[in-house]
């Protein structure tokens, strides 16, 4: 009998445990908030947001978290708006999964949420759970922001269906492109100049490999580090893309651009890239370029430069900071950024433009678009150098005033801070909105007296990391070489089915040609196969879409 009683109580206890995790009630406050005389929301209005965590957002202080930190406090204090993160994703796939779960109803869809893919946007629109904000944009978006968005009409393409707009791009701004980053000390040691075309490039990587640029008497260096384990267009670091563009112009791999008839064409099948592959294959066989590129991701490939093995890579200006450690293996190393090489006819080489990192979409039941735009505009204050944010968002976090000087390097703060909380990365956006990413660098470089926070920050950068700042100046001079991908919406029907298979084919053939496993002429067969196995149909579908937005 004792046993039976014990068992009974055990069962009851576990039943209670299981029953405990029931569903919570749903509260939907669709009422719009009201502003008081100071322009603050009173009572405090809560906007629920989603956020994909950013590993560079710094450390929270004691007792602080994503929903309780100086930045959220400031928004409550200044605007009467409480930004509450109710859906938090770790890395990109994790965040996407959570958003999709929110569509099934097992997680709540927040009021405002960033979306990082055109397929997800299409799913959101199709689900009918997101808000048509066509009129809200007209009504509530502040003039100064309308001007920004009008510069980038293509950011609305994926968000538009049947003439209705279902979101806005996250802080659109033409991001700086990649530059050619070189070991200046190697160039100097061999009496060479930075290359400006393919032939000069070849001469330099040959010399970097064979003429012992580091002067240690060993055969331990080579010319060019790139990544070849994906399509040959990484878009951030260790990118070989301008070598391809040197022969294919606008039709570099992985991009949809207009051909001479105004029809969109997929770059990877452009015959110019065949010549580039032939060149790379020759260089590979000679050992002038990274020999393990095919099995190495972009970041690791760039590390070849940091390890003092490679003399050139192509990457965004910030990557100069990432490879600065090269001085630990080569104390005399001098890093310098150069413009990318030109085509043989003197035209520039092109690369992909990045305009926005994601889009913002809104819950259908969200009734406070005005409040959202108030908050969003407030975040833009820093970029415009107006209102609350002259030098940055929060003194002591992203900037500090020491004496009468504004400093941005947290090591120079008073007191110095390591890894401070980064307000600009803690909001619903991943980054602080900017107006013109590189113009400021050019202005400061040409002697402008820094005034706004952005300018002061850049001016400080010229002191702490001059090579990187010079890199931005170089990038700025070549902004017109950045081409947005003209296919910019959800994948077409055939793409959904065949795209991965075509990409697999492309990666295989490109890499096999470079590695000499297949003859260069295999490229022609690839183009044929690509078109036959769905590529032709996809091109047709892409152009049908393109006609609707052109």
């Amino acid at each position, binding site marked *: 009998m004792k046993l039976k009683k014990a068992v009974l109580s055990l069962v009851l206890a576990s039943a209670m445990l299981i029953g405990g995790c029931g569903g919570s009630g749903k509260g939907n406050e669709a009422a719009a908030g009201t502003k008081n005389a100071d322009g603050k929301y009173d009572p405090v209005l809560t906007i629920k947001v989603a956020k994909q965590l950013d590993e560079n957002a710094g450390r929270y202080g004691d007792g602080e978290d994503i929903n309780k930190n100086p930045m959220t406090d400031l928004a409550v204090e200044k605007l009467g708006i409480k930004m509450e993160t109710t859906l938090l994703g770790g890395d990109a796939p994790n965040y996407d999964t959570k958003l999709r779960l929110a569509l*099934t109803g097992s997680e709540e869809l927040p009021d405002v949420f960033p979306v990082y893919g055109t397929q997800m946007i299409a*799913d959101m629109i*199709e689900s*009918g759970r997101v808000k048509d904000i066509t009129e809200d944009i007209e009504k509530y978006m502040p003039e100064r922001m309308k001007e920004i968005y009008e510069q980038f009409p293509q950011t609305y393409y994926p968000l538009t269906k049947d003439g209705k707009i279902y979101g806005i791009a996250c802080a659109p701004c033409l991001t700086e492109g990649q530059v050619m980053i070189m070991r200046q000390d190697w160039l100097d040691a061999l009496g060479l100049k930075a290359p400006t075309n393919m032939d000069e490039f070849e001469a330099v990587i040959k010399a970097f490999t064979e003429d012992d640029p580091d002067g240690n008497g060993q055969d331990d260096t080579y010319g060019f580090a790139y990544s070849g384990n994906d399509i040959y267009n990484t878009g951030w670091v260790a990118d070989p893309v301008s070598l391809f563009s040197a022969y294919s112009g606008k039709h570099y791999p992985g991009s949809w651009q207009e051909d001479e008839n105004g029809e969109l064409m997929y770059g990877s099948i452009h015959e110019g890239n065949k010549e580039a592959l032939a060149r790379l294959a020759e260089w590979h066989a000679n050992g002038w370029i990274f020999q393990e590129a095919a*099995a190495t991701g972009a970041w690791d490939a760039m590390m070849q430069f940091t390890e003092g093995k490679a003399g050139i890579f192509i990457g965004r200006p910030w990557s100069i900071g990432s490879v600065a450690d090269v001085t630990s293996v080569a104390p005399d190393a001098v890093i310098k950024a150069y413009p990318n090489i030109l085509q043989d006819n003197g035209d520039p080489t092109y690369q992909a433009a990045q305009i926005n990192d994601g889009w913002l979409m809104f819950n259908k039941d969200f009734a406070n678009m005005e409040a959202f735009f108030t908050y969003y505009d407030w975040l833009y204050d820093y970029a415009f150098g107006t209102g609350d944010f002259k030098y940055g968002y929060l003194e002591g976090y992203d900037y500090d005033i020491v004496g009468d000087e504004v400093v941005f390097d947290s090591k120079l703060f008073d007191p110095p801070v390591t890894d401070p909380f980064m307000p600009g990365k803690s909001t619903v956006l991943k980054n602080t909105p900017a107006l013109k990413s590189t113009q400021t660098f050019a202005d400061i470089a040409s002697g402008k007296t820094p005034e706004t926070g952005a300018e002061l920050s850049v001016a400080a950068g010229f002191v702490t990391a001059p090579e990187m700042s010079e890199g931005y100046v170089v990038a700025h001079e070549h902004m017109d070489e950045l081409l947005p991908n003209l296919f910019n919406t959800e994948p077409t029907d055939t793409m959904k089915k065949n795209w991965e298979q075509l990409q*697999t084919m492309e*990666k295989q053939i490109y890499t096999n040609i470079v590695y000499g496993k297949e003859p260069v002429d295999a490229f022609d067969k690839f183009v044929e196969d690509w078109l036959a196995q769905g590529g032709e149909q996809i091109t047709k579908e892409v152009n049908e879409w393109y006609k609707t937005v052109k």
Partner: protein
Amino acid sequence: MKKKNQPVKNVIAKKTWKQEVQHNWPLYVLLLPSFVLAIIFCYVPMGGLVMAFQNYKPWLGITGSEFVGMENFRQIFAFKESYQAIINTLVIAVSKIILGLIVPIIMALLLNEVKHVGLKKGIQTLVYLPHFLSWVTVAGMLRDILGLDGIVNGVLKSFGMDPVFFLGEAGMFRQIAVISDLWKGFGFGMIVYLAAISNIDQSLYEAAEMDGANRWQQTMYITLPGIMPMIIVMATLSLGNVLNAGFDQIFNLYSPLTYSTGDIIDTYVYRQSLVNGQYSFGTAVGLFKSGIGLILTVISYRIAYKVAGYRIF
């Protein structure tokens, strides 16, 4: 007379199911939680398999999504690349299963002959350790070891041979995958067999020695038959993995250069699903793999039962 026997027969007859429950109900109640959990976590989610036959949209749910019949399965076999992936999967997985069965047995038999207890335990621990390493770590080590500046190429160079980019050679990828998997996993199997060996009745060996059997004969006629049931269990269980070539491992080792021999179903589907949210396709592939796995497990179990008279259940 005739009627008197009737009740007696009833008492002797087996207890009915109802009586059995009435008598032992505490035990059944104890069983209940795991039974319920198994239903909740293993059987209820199987309802989601319906997705494999639908064009599933999260916001419409399983009940609202459109049925497309076998369309998703057709897509698995639609491309040349899929066949390549299936073949690669089979070759790699079958090699892993066969070697993963034989090598641990041999190693267990060899180690069983080691009489020095410390040495035996030491080896046992050492070869078991890699089992706990993540493939990300092991793949990193392999990249270093097999890289152009790695130790293997160092040896090749010292013999005056040209260095080989091992991880970029399609012809070597499967071997590398199988051998590294074996290195990582055989310690675990070995311990299982060592445990089985230690369960063999020692008097059998004594009797065999009396009859003049040498070590080899003892191994062949006592040890091996003694652990045969365990071998059959392991073989039967591993056959369910015939379409699992090991995503973690392959994903961390392969590259476009080795797609032709190394791209497996799981990695292919992974890349495919990057195009996004292809729940139905993913489910169809999962169901296909489980289906084949189930069939093979059932067949091998039947054979094991017929040939060796061994039953797991």
